[in-house]
């Protein structure tokens, strides 16, 4: 394993407290945890793309950055309207 694979794995480990936060607290707290999980996903994709020497997969991280943003907006809009 190289440094990027270790970093990506540790970033994925950061999901555990976020899942617990989303499962046990209010919906808006879950949304905040979801947004941070999205950021961790983008960073983990960057690390794994470099760690596995697949530079064409950096595009996946760019698409994920936009998808995370769009999904977060949809949830924020939904929670703001139908609580």
């Amino acid at each position, binding site marked *: 394993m190289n*440094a*990027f694979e*270790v*970093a990506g794995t*540790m*970033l994925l*480990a*950061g999901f555990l*407290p*976020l899942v*617990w*936060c989303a499962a046990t607290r*209010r*919906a*808006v*707290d879950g*949304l*905040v*945890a979801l*947004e*941070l999980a999205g*950021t*961790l996903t*983008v*960073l983990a*994709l*960057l*690390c794994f*793309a*470099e760690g596995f020497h697949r*530079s*064409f997969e*950096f*595009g996946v*991280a*760019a698409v*994920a*950055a*936009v998808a*995370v*943003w769009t999904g*977060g*907006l949809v949830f*924020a*809009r939904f*929670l*703001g309207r139908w*609580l």
Partner: protein
Amino acid sequence: MVVAGAGNIAVDVLLAAGVAGALLCCVGVLVMRTTYDRLHYAAAATTVPAFLVLAAVLVREKVGSGGLEAIAAVGLMFLLNPVLLTATARAIRKAEEGEDG
């Protein structure tokens, strides 16, 4: 030979700092008392930790096609996130008004 060694050290230091910052944000979202404080930590992950990881990638990839896509990913995250934060803060305010009302 020396350059390769220095590059590896730089990558390790940048990655360690970036991952530590991101995990610190996870702890912040977990332990902070109010939802607004948690939102602050969720937003912080798109700034310093993201650029540290990006710097580590650029040390290896230089500014080739992969490097440019990595810059695009972190740049998009950094520039788009304030819009998402504002929408989330409005949803939080409505949620807390609904509870008080």
